[in-house]
């Protein structure tokens, strides 16, 4: 098609992105003392007063119960005083009835303390719509077909998607559709969370915004949404069964076109056996509705190609706009992740107690995703205790659970509780709170001044005992904490000699991957532990093994050297 050959230079638009409130509806900014809120003027008459059923309730004795209305006529908005005692003021002047202009200051009875600023629709500059009207004026020659025009419009709108918001896209879509169908007015309805159709945008052929009104044929709208067709054209002059339809009779609607907006189908390539059965027809996101009253604006002869193109293009356009909004949500999620990261940094910021008989060191390398690793060290009468744990899963939930677990274990170690009791309590906590499938593997080890080491391994990578360059992996172990409520736990005892080392690692170390998908494995870990005396050497060996492959899990190594 011709559109492909046209070279249109799209300037990236860097102007301010309009806020969610700056949609198609005029807004009122209600200022009361230091508070300020924006109200969408999405229906008229909009009521103001002291009564609680008002659209804007101002709880002040100087405001009458039924104080004023804001009405709309021919695209203009008007404030009408309802015979209030203390009066309605526009820009300081008492009025009975006044057409509102941009930035008008409206006061109801109370002067200065609370007021409303009126903003007509679309105050923002650099909108998608303005841009589109510019390019349509310059680029589109008279011999372009309607369909090509539409394609151009939509192509432009799609590129602008990255800067605009959904409301802008809807208005653009309506303008383009009205232009192509020559219909009198058009509306876009979108489904809300409760699956009800709600007005998202309305425009007439003059480009003026329209609010929901009773002259829209909701029966045709519902029919269109329920139908399987790409569009439904109703020509009332040709249909006999429409006599009962209120709006058609009352407002003499001549032609109504309803185009259901269906979610674009993504290629379903999931395994057929595993796939959850999907509905047979694509999900209807909303509907595009245009109608005309006058014979001169007869729209029943609009080319089917155009309607079909609008139906498919519009849906993908809206879906794209929604994706942009989802990206915004994802950005916020990233902020939450950074909160989780700071929780985790707190977990890892351990001040290691100094004791004369042992030295302890810990090091952690975090992967990009937030994990649930933590370690801790506590010195008590019973000896120097070290904890290394890995909560299953990732993200905020894992970090928070790790935080809780760390607190529990810390307090019980400080209280000098037996290690078994501590893990039994942790297991009870996880299983009784029904934290889902979350669990933790952990090791708690406590070394006494005389070299007696007691430790409990709960499903964790077995520790490395390095005695005189020989690496021992004790087979002792228990279930992780949090999986089974009735799990029982046992500890193990080892006598250390001066110079002996205990090395604890998380599975992020043994399961560090290289580009070929091999794991670092216990064997490599044992080899480096036997050779070297430092944690840095272990991390260097892991880094060397992985090459450039990024870590998929946190790596934590804790080393305890008994010096006697």
């Amino acid at each position: 098609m011709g559109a492909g050959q046209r070279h249109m230079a799209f300037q990236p638009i860097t102007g301010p992105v309009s806020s969610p409130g700056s949609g198609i509806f005029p807004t009122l900014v209600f200022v009361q003392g230091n508070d300020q809120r924006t109200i969408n003027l999405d229906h008229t008459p909009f009521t103001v007063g002291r009564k609680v059923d008002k659209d804007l309730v101002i709880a002040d004795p100087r405001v009458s119960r039924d104080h004023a209305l804001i009405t709309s006529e021919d695209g203009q908005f008007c404030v009408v005083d309802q015979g209030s005692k203390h009066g309605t003021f526009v820009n300081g002047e008492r009025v009975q009835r006044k057409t509102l202009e941009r930035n008008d200051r409206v006061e109801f009875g109370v002067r200065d303390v609370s007021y409303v600023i009126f903003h007509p629709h679309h105050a923002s500059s650099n909108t998608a719509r303005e841009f589109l009207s510019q390019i349509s004026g310059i680029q589109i020659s008279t011999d372009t077909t309607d369909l090509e025009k539409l394609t151009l419009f939509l192509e432009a709108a799609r590129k602008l998607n990255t800067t605009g918001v959904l409301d802008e896209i809807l208005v653009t879509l309506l303008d383009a559709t009205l232009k192509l169908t020559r219909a009198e007015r058009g509306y876009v309805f979108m489904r809300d969370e409760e699956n009800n159709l709600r007005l998202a945008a309305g425009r007439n052929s003059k480009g003026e915004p329209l609010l929901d009104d009773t002259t829209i044929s909701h029966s045709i709208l519902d029919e269109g949404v329920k139908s399987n067709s790409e569009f439904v054209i109703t020509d009332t002059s040709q249909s006999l069964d429409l006599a009962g339809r209120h709006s058609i009779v009352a407002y003499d609607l001549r032609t109504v076109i309803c185009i259901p907006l269906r979610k674009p189908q993504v290629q379903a390539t999931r395994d057929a056996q595993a796939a959850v059965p999907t509905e047979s027809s694509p999900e209807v996101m909303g509907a595009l509705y245009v109608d005309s009253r006058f014979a001169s604006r007869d729209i029943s002869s609009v080319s089917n190609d155009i309607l079909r193109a609008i139906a498919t293009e519009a849906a993908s356009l809206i879906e794209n706009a929604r994706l942009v909004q989802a990206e915004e949500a994802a950005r916020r999620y990233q902020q939450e992740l950074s909160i989780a990261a700071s929780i985790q940094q707190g977990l890892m910021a351990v001040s290691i107690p100094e004791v004369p008989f042992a030295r302890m060191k810990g090091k952690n390398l975090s992967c990009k995703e937030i994990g649930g690793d933590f370690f801790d060290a506590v010195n008590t009468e019973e000896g120097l205790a070290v904890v290394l744990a890995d909560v299953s899963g990732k993200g905020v939930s894992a970090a928070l659970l790790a935080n809780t677990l760390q607190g529990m274990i810390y307090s019980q170690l400080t209280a000098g509780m037996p290690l078994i009791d501590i893990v039994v309590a942790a297991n009870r906590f996880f299983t009784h709170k029904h934290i889902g499938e979350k669990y933790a593997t952990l090791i708690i080890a406590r070394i006494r001044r005389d070299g007696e080491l007691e430790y409990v391994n709960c499903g964790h990578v077995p520790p490395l005992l390095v005695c005189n360059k020989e690496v021992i992996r004790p087979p002792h172990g228990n279930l992780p904490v949090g999986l089974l409520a009735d799990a029982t736990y046992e500890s193990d005892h080892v006598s250390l000699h001066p110079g002996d080392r205990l090395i604890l690692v998380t599975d992020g170390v043994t399961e560090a991957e290289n580009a070929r998908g091999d794991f670092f494995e216990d064997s490599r870990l044992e080899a480096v532990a036997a050779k070297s005396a430092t944690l840095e050497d272990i991390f260097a060996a892991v880094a060397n093994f992985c090459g450039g492959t990024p870590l998929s899990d946190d790596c934590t190594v804790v080393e305890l050297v008994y010096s006697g």
Partner: protein
Amino acid sequence: MDLKIGKRRVDGVTIVSCQGRIMFGDEANALRDFLKQTLAETPRMVLNLAGVTYIDSGGLGTLVGVYSSARGGGADIKLTGLGQRLRDVLQITKLATVFEVFDSEQEALTALGRGAA
């Protein structure tokens, strides 16, 4: 998603086979939903993990979660097709004592048959 799940029926028992990785997130969620739905249809199941190349801590948690809630609800799951790596993990975590693991599908089916008889 990096996990394919398939099922077939043999003598009133559902054999579920997995291929790929069972990781915390999409894969574990898909597996949980699939197993729960399947257990609602037939309470006796053999879970064949021969095609599973890797299972992370979250995936293991899901497996244990489904396993113990199935047991609690009177259902019976036998595992088979465990690779060396998964056997090691079950050994380290002592979960080998929790799951009923069999060397072949046939042995698992036989064990289920005995249980029902």
